[in-house]
């Protein structure tokens, strides 16, 4: 049944109806055959966010490549569509065929950030599915998930039948096929899940028992059956250069967040910033070669008609062939007015030089992330940037004619003092001063200098060296923000920060346990939706939901004992068990750890445990290695 057809003309009444029409160029719409397995990929956020996500595109095209599979898409309905569907008594529908979720065999969520958790519940509810895995029947679709936050998905784990830990490219097709054959053989859901749990990277939450002591701390996470593995090991692809990458991207009508063609130049980052979750969960660094990238870019541009290509990764400027790649790209595409964007810049002159090279066609803003205001604190978080790096970078930028730069900082970091905030203020003011000086000497006309300072709140994340640290107290956080705001209230400086309560909530869930699933349901029932979109966020509602379930937010925000069993203990990132602790101790001593790409091994042991290797392509690196 095509659900969308039934309300198609009513979509005129809701905001952005183009979110729900599908039919994008390159959309894959297969004829439904009974013997095919139908997978619905779900992104628990609005269309324009989900469609900007690379992982979703990879999975969509990867599964649709299989003749015996049909993969379609669904995103969270905006509250006005949710309302309309409720009024009409209709379920949520897929973008491709307009079919309801219960017509699919598998509902597969991409999990990106904690603040989209309530949207998972909306999708389940609007599909007529029970929230908890244990309450769903044999006939319901299998609800699975994966994505960048699987280092700790415990707060939503009870909603899922199965989760995948790590990079799914090499396993997802096998998992789907295996599910199909087990299902066809007539096995019960429980037995199927036990069988699937034997596949590397597959985590079946219902197969693990979590015990708590009277203080609410976890005393153990244990498999319920002998045949269930004790720990779920993260999976990754060993060769990015050979890995599947879609070349026929969907081209949305709506102006989505990243409305451009994208290639993934490398995966993983070993810079070792201690606050960064991705720095651990995507280790080690694997690069794609310039040849492969040139080839992919050519195909993507031809098949989409985009006029912008983004070179993405966790640190694009560190790609060993980046200079050559950028040079070749600008030469090849200048006439076609294709602009190139770099997803992340390092704080140095080299980055500005590259940015200048790529922005011959269209000039956009420059962003640098020194993260903290003093050398001491930058050492604590292992952000290897010096003040002079920053000044050289911005001087180069202003001299090249950029009048606006954006600076990212974090506050509420471990060991942070007033001195660090004063350092931050001083850095920003110096940058502004340098900009003004250069502008006054510049012969060419330059717009007034603008420094956009964006300050985000540090949140201790699972599987990072700071996973034991407490979240900064909210009163202290507000004080810090006020201090910065009053000192940066100056012409030419634009100061922005995260909503404090939203950071607090994110922090609760990022180190939360399974009991929080009840809080999520309460909050959803009270109306929580799209919490990450400030305009919908209601902290009171959340506090009420904690009270309703006799759970204390402070329990989750507190400092964790180094010997405590953490809720994500059974998820194995591939780390040497002492690595995070060592890094944590070094942090407290403001000792740094260098990047293993350009130095000897730092002993995280991921390469060893996960049977991969740093895969660096550039010549310089190989010379160094030999």
């Amino acid at each position, binding site marked *: 049944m095509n659900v969308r057809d039934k309300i198609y003309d009513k979509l*005129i009444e809701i905001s952005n109806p183009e979110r729900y029409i599908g039919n994008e160029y390159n959309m894959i719409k297969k004829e439904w055959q009974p013997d095919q397995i139908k997978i619905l990929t779900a992104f628990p956020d609005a269309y324009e966010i989900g469609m900007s996500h690379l992982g979703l595109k990879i999975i969509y095209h990867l599964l649709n490549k299989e003749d015996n599979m049909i993969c379609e898409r669904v995103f969270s309905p905006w509250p006005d569509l949710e309302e309309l569907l409720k009024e009409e008594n209709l379920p949520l529908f897929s973008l491709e065929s307009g079919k309801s979720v219960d017509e699919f065999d598998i509902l597969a969520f991409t999990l990106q950030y904690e603040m989209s958790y309530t949207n998972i519940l909306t999708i389940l509810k609007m599909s007529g599915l029970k929230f908890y895995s244990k309450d769903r029947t044999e006939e319901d679709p299998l609800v699975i998930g994966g994505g960048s936050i699987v280092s700790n998905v415990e707060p939503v784990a009870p909603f899922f039948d199965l989760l995948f830990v790590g990079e799914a490219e090499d396993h997802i097709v096998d998992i789907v096929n295996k599910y199909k054959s087990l299902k066809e053989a007539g096995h019960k859901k429980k037995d199927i899940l036990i069988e699937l749990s034997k596949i590397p990277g597959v985590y079946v939450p219902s197969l693990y028992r979590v015990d708590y002591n009277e203080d609410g701390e976890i005393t153990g996470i244990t498999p319920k059956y002998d045949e269930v593995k004790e720990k779920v090991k993260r999976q990754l692809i060993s060769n990015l250069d050979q890995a599947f990458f879609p070349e026929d991207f969907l081209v949305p009508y709506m102006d989505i967040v990243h409305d451009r063609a994208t290639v993934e130049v490398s995966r993983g980052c070993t810079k070792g910033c201690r606050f960064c979750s991705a720095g651990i969960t995507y280790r080690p660094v694997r690069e794609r070669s310039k040849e492969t990238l040139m080839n992919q870019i050519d195909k993507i541009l031809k098949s989409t*008609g985009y006029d912008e290509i983004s070179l993405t990764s966790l640190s694009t400027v560190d790609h060993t062939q980046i200079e050559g790649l950028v040079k070749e790209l600008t030469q090849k595409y200048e006439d076609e007015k294709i602009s190139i964007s770099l997803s992340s810049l390092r704080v140095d002159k080299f980055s500005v030089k590259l940015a200048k090279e790529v922005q011959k066609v269209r000039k956009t803003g420059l962003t640098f992330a020194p993260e903290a205001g003093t050398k001491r604190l930058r050492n604590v978080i292992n952000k290897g940037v010096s003040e002079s790096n920053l000044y050289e970078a911005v001087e180069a930028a202003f001299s090249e004619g950029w009048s606006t730069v954006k600076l990212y900082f974090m506050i509420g970091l471990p060991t942070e003092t007033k001195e660090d905030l004063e350092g931050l203020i001083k850095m920003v003011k110096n940058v502004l001063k340098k900009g003004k000086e250069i502008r006054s000497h510049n012969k060419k006309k330059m717009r007034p200098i603008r420094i956009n300072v964006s300050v985000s709140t540090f949140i201790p994340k699972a599987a990072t060296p700071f996973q034991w640290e407490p979240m900064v107290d909210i009163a202290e956080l507000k004080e810090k923000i006020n201090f910065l705001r009053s000192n940066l209230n100056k012409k030419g400086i634009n100061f922005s920060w995260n909503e404090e309560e939203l950071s607090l909530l994110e922090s609760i869930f990022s180190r939360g346990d399974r009991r929080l699933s009840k809080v999520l349901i309460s909050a959803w029932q009270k109306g929580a939706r799209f919490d990450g979109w400030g305009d919908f966020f209601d902290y009171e509602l959340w506090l009420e939901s904690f009270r309703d379930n006799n759970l204390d937010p402070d329990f989750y925000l507190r400092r964790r004992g180094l010997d405590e069993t953490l809720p994500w203990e059974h998820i194995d990132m591939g780390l040497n068990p002492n690595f995070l602790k060592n890094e944590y101790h070094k942090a407290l001593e403001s000792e740094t750890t260098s990047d293993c790409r350009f130095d000897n091994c730092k002993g995280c042991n991921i390469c060893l445990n996960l049977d991969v290797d740093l895969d660096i392509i550039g010549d310089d690196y190989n010379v160094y290695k030999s």
Partner: protein
Amino acid sequence: MYIRAEYRKDDQLKYISHLELMNTFRRTFRRAGLPVAYSQGYNPHIIFSMSQPLPVGMVGYNEYFDLELKEKISFTKIKKEVNKKLPFGLKVSEMIEIHEKEKSLQAIVNTARYRYEMSFRDELNQQKVLENFLSEKEIEITRFRRNKDDRMIDLAPMIYNGRVLKDDVWEFTISTGSSGNVRPQEVIRALKIKTDGLVKEIPLVNIERLGLYVREEGKLYKPTNKDVLKKEVREK
């Protein structure tokens, strides 16, 4: 080389906005590998212009765009390539070459024809109601304007023609563009007022734009009609 094209926007794409439609065409031209021309300056874009925007939710059967190409290529080829690379729901039906100094679509298109799925409170003689409406000397309604004060306008001189196509399906030919613009729903609103509510308001999706025209001395021409193209295309 300058070309003018006629296209249709169908039901599948009626919810995309004018800006989104422009982007869709620009990307289509690139996919089709056309030798498009770019504007100069900071943010170069494909030189391309369109006729009066279709409101979100409305289908349009005879819409137009002008496009500049850096070199001359055959129409059959352009049309074929563009149609191959357009998403489902958009289709180019005709293409002609125009002079580089040809007046823009926005400047010449002054008339639009719409098809309405009508809705009535009671049974009535539709033909008679329409005739009465068209014979009104003055059809005053309030125009609501975004960020501006409401004002009264007289639709009578801007409604050129109306027909009952069949029961509950009417057609109006009305003025559009800078020299006098009638919004398609305003006709229904005026009808509602004049009939004391016998004619009911309808959602925008019940209105379709049948075509855009150049109206000269009471006659309607398509913007691709040679008779309204003032400048001959020079042979090269």
